[in-house]
């Protein structure tokens, strides 16, 4: 039964009113409806209640056709709608689903016979309501999508702002540390506060430099040198923090030179992106700090070296003292110039210098030192056991050789060159040059001290010429070593055995050479006076050689 099935006018009016109310309720329901499908189903389901019809279909513009073969007809009737032909239908009409958003499709109704004008009015109204509800729903869905998109965008923006804020906090905190001069301790503490994780700062070799957080390990675990090197290589390749077991390590390597590392202790692998960001920032600040410290150290070292050079080369009292004061060094104490020669297992001047520096610091012997070629010069402000100092150098080197000459004590700035010359002579005089590695004080050189101290060497040269002139001329002409042989023989009290051994020659060779010495020089080696003068002459000959060369 339809709502307009009665013929009486009063009933018709009542029926029409009822139908309009039905449409009103339906329209409200469609407007309130949750989705497009719900609206379409309501329209399709309600239509037979409003008019006699046997086919109801909603054909959306651009959608899949529910009733086949309608495309051309719907295109023809367009947004105004109109009569269409459907198989087995006496009458069919396409009502437009219109709205302010445009034409959305058609409500297609099929019936055996044409419905009454009132029924057609209701069907057209139904289509209009469905179109309006559909447009509203689409607008609403679009608004929701836009709102969701905006919400997601806002969320992303909040995330970005949060990350930026965090990054700024990290930057601000660590910059404050860098500016305040809190050093590695301050950097470790700041990164610990930013991440909540334990933080350590290690030097290039894995030694602990600073720690922040609870439960500081004691002793601090240290990798073998080989493993440490592998770890640093891996971190360099990664160019970002790397995980090493329970730790996350970031290198501090300004200009590619690894100076140290900052480590987050993260056994549960819970470090957040922000924590890693803080670690990276921390590594950057640490790199700056370590570079600054190294630069300072290098500057101080250079200034110290310049001061040492100036003192050894001779400078005036005022200038020397001023430079020393600028370095915070008290020069107005007794000093000795110490010259150390040697090398470690490898010939590396810097390694040798560092070994001397550490040994002098620990002994203690002094802190003012400089490398001069292969030798290291120390201005010692203490009187340590010199042999003990030399052995310390050997220990620091881990093997190799070390010889040490110690000059006389100098009380004033202008005495440093003299002490330096004495230290070098102590290393090079014939009597010491062939000794085993040891420390030699110039004070202990006996007659050599007298010879070195003579201002006018011409008398000494005449004395040497008188006693050794023939032998020296023979050696020069024949390339022999008669003077050197005589020198060793006399220095060992005429002992054949010791002399042959020191010269590394056979005993018979020594006897032959001594015979030649007696013949060429006309010398009686059995005469004590002759022997005394010859020994003095040979020592003077050696001393003159060293003095000339220096």
């Amino acid at each position, binding site marked *: 039964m339809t709502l307009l099935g009665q013929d009486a006018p009063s009933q018709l009016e009542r029926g029409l009113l*009822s*139908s309009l*109310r*039905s449409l*009103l*309720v*339906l329209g*409200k*329901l469609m*407007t*309130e*409806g*949750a*989705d497009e*499908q*719900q*609206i*379409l*189903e*309501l*329209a*399709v*389901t*309600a239509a037979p*209640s409003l008019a006699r019809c046997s086919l109801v279909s909603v054909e959306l513009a651009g959608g899949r056709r529910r009733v086949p073969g309608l495309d051309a007809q719907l295109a023809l009737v367009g947004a105004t709608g109109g009569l269409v032909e459907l198989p087995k239908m006496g009458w069919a009409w396409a009502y437009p689903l219109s709205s302010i958003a445009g034409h959305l499709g058609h409500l297609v109704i099929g019936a055996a016979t044409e419905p009454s004008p009132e029924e057609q009015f209701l069907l057209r109204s139904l289509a209009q309501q469905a179109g309006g509800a559909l447009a509203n729903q689409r607008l609403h869905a679009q608004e929701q999508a836009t709102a969701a998109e905006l919400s997601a965008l806002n969320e992303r923006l909040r995330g970005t702002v949060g990350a930026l804020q965090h990054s700024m906090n990290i930057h601000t905190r660590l910059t404050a540390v860098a500016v305040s001069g809190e050093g590695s301790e301050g950097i470790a503490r700041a990164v610990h506060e930013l991440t909540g994780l334990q933080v350590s700062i290690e030097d290039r070799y894995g030694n602990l430099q600073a720690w922040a957080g609870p439960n500081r390990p004691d002793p601090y675990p240290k990798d073998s040198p080989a493993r440490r090197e592998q770890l640093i290589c891996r971190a360099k390749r990664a160019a970002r923090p790397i995980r090493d077991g329970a730790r996350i390590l970031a290198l501090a390597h300004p200009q590619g030179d690894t100076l140290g590392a900052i480590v987050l202790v993260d056994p549960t692998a819970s470090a957040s992106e922000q924590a890693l960001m803080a670690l990276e920032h921390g590594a950057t600040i640490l790199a700056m700090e370590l570079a600054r410290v190294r630069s300072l150290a290098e500057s101080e070292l250079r200034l110290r070296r310049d001061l040492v050079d100036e003192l050894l080369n001779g400078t005036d009292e005022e200038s020397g003292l001023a430079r020393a004061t600028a370095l915070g060094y008290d020069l107005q104490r007794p000093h000795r110039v110490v010259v150390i020669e040697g090398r470690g297992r490898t010939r590396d001047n810097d390694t040798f210098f560092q070994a001397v520096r550490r040994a002098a610091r620990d002994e203690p012997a002094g802190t003012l030192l400089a490398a001069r070629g292969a030798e290291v010069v120390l201005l010692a402000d203490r009187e340590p056991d010199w042999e003990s100092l030399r052995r310390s150098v050997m220990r620091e080197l881990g093997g190799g050789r070390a010889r040490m000459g110690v000059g006389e004590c100098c009380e004033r700035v202008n005495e440093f060159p003299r002490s330096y010359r004495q230290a070098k002579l102590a290393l090079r005089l014939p009597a010491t040059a062939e000794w085993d590695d040891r420390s030699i004080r110039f004070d202990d050189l006996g007659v050599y001290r007298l010879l070195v101290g003579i201002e006018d060497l011409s008398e000494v040269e005449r004395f040497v010429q008188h006693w050794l002139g023939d032998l020296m001329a023979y050696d020069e002409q024949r390339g022999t070593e008669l003077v050197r042989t005589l020198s060793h023989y006399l220095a060992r009290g005429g002992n054949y055995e010791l002399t042959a051994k020191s010269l590394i020659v056979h005993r018979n060779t020594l006897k032959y050479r001594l015979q030649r010495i007696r013949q060429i020089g006309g010398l009686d080696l059995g005469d004590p006076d002759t022997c005394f003068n010859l020994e003095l002459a040979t020592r003077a000959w050696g001393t003159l050689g060293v003095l000339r060369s220096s």
Partner: protein
Amino acid sequence: MTTSMAMGLPGVSLAPGDHICAFYRGAAQRDELLVPYLREGLLAGDKCICVTDDPGADQAVRTLAGQLDVDLSLATGQLESMRSESSYLVGGCFVIDRMIEFWDGAVGGAVRHDGYQFVRAVGEMTWALRDLPGVEHLLAYEARLNDFLPRYPQVILCLYDLEQFSNGQILLDILRTHPKVLLSGQLMDNPWYTDPEVYLASHS
């Protein structure tokens, strides 16, 4: 017996025997119907029976505490609040006769034994969307309920969430089984309403 009474929404009046389907979208709109409806009933001294399906609706009933002593109402039995599991879906299934008996016991008891002049009932109907035996008889139940309404001085408000009841055919059937419809804050005589006998005959 009162012939007309305020529902709780501005300008909306109820009449004894009303069986109303109220459509809403989402929990917030549901609470805007549920809370004033119960509050008005409690203030009028009516017996109020509330069956909820969403735990959030329980909380909505609690919001009445802002204006009324809900605990006292619950304690005295003026307000009965229960879940669908202990009413519509006892034993994990829906049975029409059992539910009609439930209402008969609850409403009849309130009127006959507890002396209430009027009973307001409200049911959140989303339980019918669960995949449980008997829920397919929802609309037959709604039609049968129309015969039960005249027995007592009462109003029954059925809450339907349009976000969950999305099928157009079901929506029209819901309309056909309720003499009154509440939409957008407006209570109307439902032109789609079909006599229960006719409806049940056409759907049997």
